[in-house]
């Protein structure tokens, strides 16, 4: 069962406690476990015309079950950083450790990736798309897990639809289901909701939080929307423009589960403004 960890955790805590208390305790329980350790990672691209230093001397770690959002100006190297964490794209220097193990190649069983584009194969139905990773790994499809995930994602009844027949939000939920069906420990998300309209985006944020609270995956989520980052994350990593460095870490300790009205609270806006000032640097507030 896919909620195993959570179930176990609930039983440890005993009945009658509120969701909120559970989460707080859970966090205390897992606080020691480092899932991802990034040590002095730099990434340099060599193009035909120039050398681009996309990420420079990045050192930070992500705890087990933590939700980290990475924000920064366009082209600041946040996507590059994520690709370094995925193992698809080795860092030029520095190391990434997943559960203490040096990352040298993709870890299909432990890391799941969600892309900006839903990346569903258009010639396969939704279900066939979800089955693709199982086929590549030559594993039997975990029907029970897939079924539960489809239910949470509100995609029941669309299993045989082709991506072309689904809305943008449904496609992206489908791609998240595809990643979660592999039951990875870490989910890397590269601006997954960037192409969606504002309302769908809010919906997707709530969906993602719901899934995260049930599964407690470790999530690193790249976004250019600061409010999205604050709404979702435990911690927000703010990156400086090229070369991308970690300029600031913001702890976001709004209680969970969070609802969409959170973004109108003064404290939320305060954090939003301070990160925005950071990202924009000296330009902030001035119309040029």
């Amino acid at each position, binding site marked *: 069962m896919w909620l195993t960890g959570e179930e176990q955790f609930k039983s440890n805590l005993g009945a009658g406690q509120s969701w909120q208390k559970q989460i707080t305790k859970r966090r205390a329980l897992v606080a020691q476990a480092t899932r991802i350790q990034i040590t002095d990672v730099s990434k340099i*691209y*060599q193009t035909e015309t120039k050398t681009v230093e996309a990420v420079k001397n990045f050192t930070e770690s992500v705890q087990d079950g933590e939700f980290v959002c990475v924000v920064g100006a366009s082209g600041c190297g946040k996507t590059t950083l994520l690709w370094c964490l995925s193992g*698809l794209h*080795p860092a030029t220097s520095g190391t990434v450790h997943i559960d203490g193990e040096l990352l040298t190649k*993709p870890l299909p069983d432990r890391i799941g*990736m969600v*892309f*900006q584009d839903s990346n569903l194969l258009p010639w396969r139905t939704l279900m066939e798309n979800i089955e693709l990773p199982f086929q*590549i790994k030559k594993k039997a499809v975990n029907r029970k897990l897939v079924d539960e995930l489809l239910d949470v994602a509100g995609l029941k009844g669309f299993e045989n639809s082709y991506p072309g027949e689904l809305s943008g939000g449904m496609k992206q939920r489908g791609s998240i289901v595809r990643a979660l069906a592999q039951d990875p420990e870490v989910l890397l998300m590269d601006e997954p909701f960037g192409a969606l309209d504002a309302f769908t985006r809010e919906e997707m944020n709530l969906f993602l939080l719901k899934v995260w609270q049930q599964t407690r995956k470790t999530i690193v989520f790249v976004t250019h929307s600061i409010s999205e980052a604050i709404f979702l994350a435990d911690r927000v990593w703010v990156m400086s423009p090229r070369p991308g460095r970690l300029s600031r870490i913001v702890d976001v300790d709004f209680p969970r589960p969070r609802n969409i009205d959170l973004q109108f609270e003064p404290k939320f806006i305060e954090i939003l403004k301070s990160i925005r000032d950071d990202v924009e640097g000296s330009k902030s507030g001035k119309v040029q």
Partner: protein
Amino acid sequence: MATDNLADKIPDFNSSGGNQGGNGPVDISALANLRRAKGLKEIASVIALAIVVVTLLEFILIWTHTEAYVFPKPTAIIHSLFTDFSTLYWKPLTQTVQTFFMGLIIGSTIGLSLAVLVTLKPGLDIFISPYIIILVTTPMVALIPFLMLKFGFGMTPRVIAISLATGPMVMINSATGFRRTNAELIALGKSYGATEFQLFRKIRFPFALPMIIVGFMVGSIFGLLTAVGAEMVGGGMGLGNRLIYFSSLVQMSQFGAVLVIVATFGVGIYSFFTFVNRKWASWDA
């Protein structure tokens, strides 16, 4: 934006391949609508119009007293098609069909293999593409006299010429299709630990299928052109040879009948691949 950053790990074929965005060398999407006639009523009206056009042609030829050697009457052609089919046309038709399919199978197999090769080893591209371009742009019929000196008057020279006409078309279109495969889709496959073979089978090939089908369609039409052209040049076999034969005897209704058979063959190829495209690559529409 992510795709810009993939250059060092995931080969970016778009930069070397050209052909971004479009449907490759030949875009048939505009014509494909012809095949989307819906409903009996629509089909019936198309057929009715064809009958009207043919009838009109017949009457114009009668009214203007056009001689048969100038322009054969549609009825004479149809009559000849039905009465002489087994005696005059069947054997050359089988000869043309046979050489055509042999050439198509050999040419497309080589073309597809080369496309896979240049996709897996992008460096080979610059060595192979000049020859492919020469083969695509040179009419292969021109090689026939030369090939006949080498291989005689049998099927061999024509099969070679047809292979050379179809292969490069299949290769160019397939290679373009393989290369256009979205870099993020490849990254997706790799993130699940897919091998190069799995990437090809599960992602590149299905992605390229619409282009491959177009390659086969265009290649087949080039092949038919070469087949009939080669038969006209020499060898005493096939429909092309019959065209020369009947026109030299000024048997224009028989000539017209052969022309109708060749045209039907061509339309058949087109319809077949349009059908295949709709059946297996409809997601690309």
